[in-house]
């Protein structure tokens, strides 16, 4: 059976086996990945990657099975297991699948597979780090080329086909000089072609250079409340908004502090935050949701007003709020502001630039507390020393209303498009 036939066979047989409604996703892919460890090439990895995901609803009871084998015997067993799971589940009227709107095929392609070029880019980067940043140890790097063909069918007649391929890379590094070592830092990017040197992608060079500067650090003396510039490399604010306040779990549980805030002002008017899988700067973004809806860009916060929750179809039916237009919760776009980064820094007498946050996932209260990593002091409008052992503490709900400036400049890494955002009212403390 080919991929289309597998999907149709699985869907038909889920219904035959007793499902009232069913959905099926078949994915076939391949990954080629170069690996570097401690500054040296270590591995070339090839993955032949298939998967079949089945969902059955039997009298509002849901079962889901996932397998990675696509021959008939395995598919038949997965169908049997899926029905068995559904029948032994608890009924829930909120369970459903997407209704048919318009069937589509999505093609989003890179410049084509060019492993030799990818290898040359990887080699060039390893040599660039060695030559330009002799104090940097490239702890690890991967560079990969990925191709996927995905088919989604459901029993309401929805059919989506998606064909995509893309490149991505990630690096992890720290600076070392004798007994001195900086904190590790990392950079990740997705891209459509290996035309750009890896060092020139987004903030990559900036972060490498800042690691070297971080060999000598200073600790904040005492404790004060001040301004913090969160750079595009640090996702703590945006991730917490999604996980603690507007996604399925906190809203179904009723623990979200914004459960009744839809349509109300929850942040400074300068803030507009979106999920943007279709943005041209986002590589291989989501084209349809796992529920079976075509993905569209959507604002979560517009001009400071909470405009949408990030709910799945189930979460929507459970809470009575509209579902999100997409489920690409990692494709975050924050609108630019009207202040240049230089002006933003100049306007801060005492604060820090936060590149990486090391701390626990915040709980439902929105209290966030952790260590400022790869971060720098701002004193009298100038970035000065790298920080060590400095904690930042704040409550997300409180500080969103306290945004003095958002930068005009933004940074793209193929997954997110973010500006530098200045927050006030953050507790900054040393030992």
């Amino acid at each position, binding site marked *: 059976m080919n991929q289309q036939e597998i999907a149709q066979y699985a869907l038909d047989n889920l219904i035959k086996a007793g499902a009232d409604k069913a959905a099926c996703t078949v994915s076939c892919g391949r990954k080629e990945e170069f*690996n570097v*460890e*401690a500054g*040296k090439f*270590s591995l*070339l*990895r*090839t*993955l*032949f*990657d*298939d*998967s079949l995901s089945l969902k059955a609803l039997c009298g509002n009871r*849901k*079962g889901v099975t*996932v*397998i*990675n084998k696509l021959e008939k015997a395995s598919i038949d067993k997965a169908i049997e*297991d899926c029905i*068995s*799971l*559904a029948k*032994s*589940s*608890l009924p829930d009227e*909120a369970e459903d699948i997407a209704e048919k709107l318009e069937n589509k095929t999505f093609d989003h392609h890179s410049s084509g597979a060019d492993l030799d070029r990818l*290898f040359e880019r990887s080699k060039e980067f390893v040599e660039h780090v060695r030559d330009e940043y002799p104090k940097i*140890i490239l*702890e*690890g790097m*991967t560079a990969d080329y990925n191709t996927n063909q995905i088919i989604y069918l459901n029993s309401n007649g929805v059919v989506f086909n998606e064909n995509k391929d893309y490149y991505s890379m990630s690096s992890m590094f*720290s600076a*070392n000089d*004798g*007994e001195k*070592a*900086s*904190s590790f830092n990392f950079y990740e990017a997705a891209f459509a072609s290996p035309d750009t040197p890896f060092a020139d992608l987004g903030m990559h060079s900036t972060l490498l250079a800042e690691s070297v500067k971080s060999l000598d650090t200073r600790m904040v003396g005492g404790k004060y409340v001040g301004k913090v510039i969160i750079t595009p490399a640090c996702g703590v604010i945006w991730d917490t908004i999604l996980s603690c306040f507007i996604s399925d*779990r906190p809203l*179904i*549980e*009723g*623990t979200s*502090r914004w459960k009744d805030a839809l349509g109300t002002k929850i942040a400074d008017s300068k803030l507009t935050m979106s999920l943007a899988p279709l943005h041209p700067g986002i590589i291989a973004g989501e084209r349809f949701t796992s529920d079976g809806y075509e993905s569209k860009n959507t604002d979560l916060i517009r001009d400071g007003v909470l405009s949408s929750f990030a709910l799945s179809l*189930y979460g929507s039916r459970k809470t009575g709020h509209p579902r999100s237009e997409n489920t690409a919760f990692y494709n975050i776009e924050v609108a630019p502001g009207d202040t240049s980064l230089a002006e933003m820094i100049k306007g801060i007498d005492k604060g820090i630039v936060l590149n990486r946050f090391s*701390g*626990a996932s915040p*709980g*439902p*209260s929105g*209290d966030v*507390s*952790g*260590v400022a*990593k790869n971060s720098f002091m701002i004193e009298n409008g100038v970035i000065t020393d790298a920080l060590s*052992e400095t*904690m930042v*503490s704040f409550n997300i709900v409180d500080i969103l209303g306290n945004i003095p400036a958002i930068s005009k400049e933004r940074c793209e890494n193929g997954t997110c498009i973010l500006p530098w955002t200045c927050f006030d009212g953050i507790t900054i*403390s040393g*030992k």
Partner: protein
Amino acid sequence: MLKDLLSVHKTGFKDYTELRAQVNNTKRVVMLAGNMVTNVQSSEGGVSARVYKGGTFGFASGAEYSKQGVEKVLSAATDNAIFMDKHVNRSKPPLPSAQSGNFGLTITPRDDIPQSMLIDFASTVDSMIADKYGKLSSRSVIANSLDIEKLLVVSDGADSHFYQPRSLVYVFLTAETDDGVPVELFKSFGGLGHFDEIFPNPASLTEELDILYESLMKKREGIYSNAGLHKCILHPDLAGMLAHEAVGHTVEADIVLGGSVAANNLNKRVASDLISMTDFAHTALGKPCPLPVYVDDEGIIAKDAVLIENGILKSFMYNRETAQHFDTAPTGNARAFAFSDEPLIRMRNTAILPGESKMDDMIASIDDGYYIVKTGNGQADTTGEFTFSVELGYEIKNGKLGKAIRETNISGVAFEMLKTVDMVSDDMNWECGGFCGKKQAMTAGMGGPAIRCELNIGGR
């Protein structure tokens, strides 16, 4: 159970080669505020090959576990090794030879545990919580099982057949403070074994759930901790996480080569002489470890890695390649999580060893400090700088436990903080409920006694 389709290829290996067939079977049920929001079963398996040539590896994996499937990944891995050798040309000698052997199953695989067992368990526990604990604003119960089976054939070293079932239940309870701020507490139950062996009935959790609820009620009325450096007692669960996150990762030999703080500290004092720490392979202090490893995924017979002995950093954890680099023997720490993952240096069962102090004496010894009981998660740096969340803790005043504290963080630098340890309890807890992340996920055991030390605590 996996059939051996691998051994037949062994005579054809030219360079150092691993062939691994593997299947990971997962069951997961999530009850959220009384709703069954997840009911999923997955089975992901296949075969992988890794070939070493001149200092680099070629690797390939595929889902099809058949004669043709094995030949396909073996051919692709060999091609990848040749590509890398040609383009990178590290010209390194072959990997040193390792002790041979053939290790069979220590646990018999079972596939007779239905998903309905997890569904019934989770929904019953959920009902117990809803019926009994009146001041909750929400609750969540997760029942989870993960069975991993591997068949490994290597060109040099020990072949093995491995099977490890892990069954866990997580309970999250949420309440609100008087001013409407939600506070949460969770606990994980279970460990090595099949679900019905670990969880004979939901009532077996009653006592622990009562304690969890009582602790949440205290946390609900908790106070902010006083930010700064304080004398603290770390509960054994935290000491285990500290051993894993803040010290363990820095002494993985690949991280050492990547510039970790441990690189310059071998045979130097990194802790008070009360601290000894080992990454155990399969047996610790005469008892089986939470997640025993007898042979790693490079065919190395696993042995304990003594990391810190009486405060002195003694050694690292090695795979074949880093052992060659450091001119020592591999320790059997090379492990892969999925069939499509290459083996990386991973911890197995990492623990700080118990001391001689009594817990009551340790609490009584502090006039003004904190007892840190529970952490949600933690992160550590290659510098040894660490941050852990504090989900549950109490102030200690005049040698007695006081009020609970609200959620905060503790942080420090491992090799500095461990030098402040001046009491270590004579008991020890093991835990294996989470996943360690390092390119791939991995199951790991961690353990330790309570320790008294100085820590930087967040708060106001």
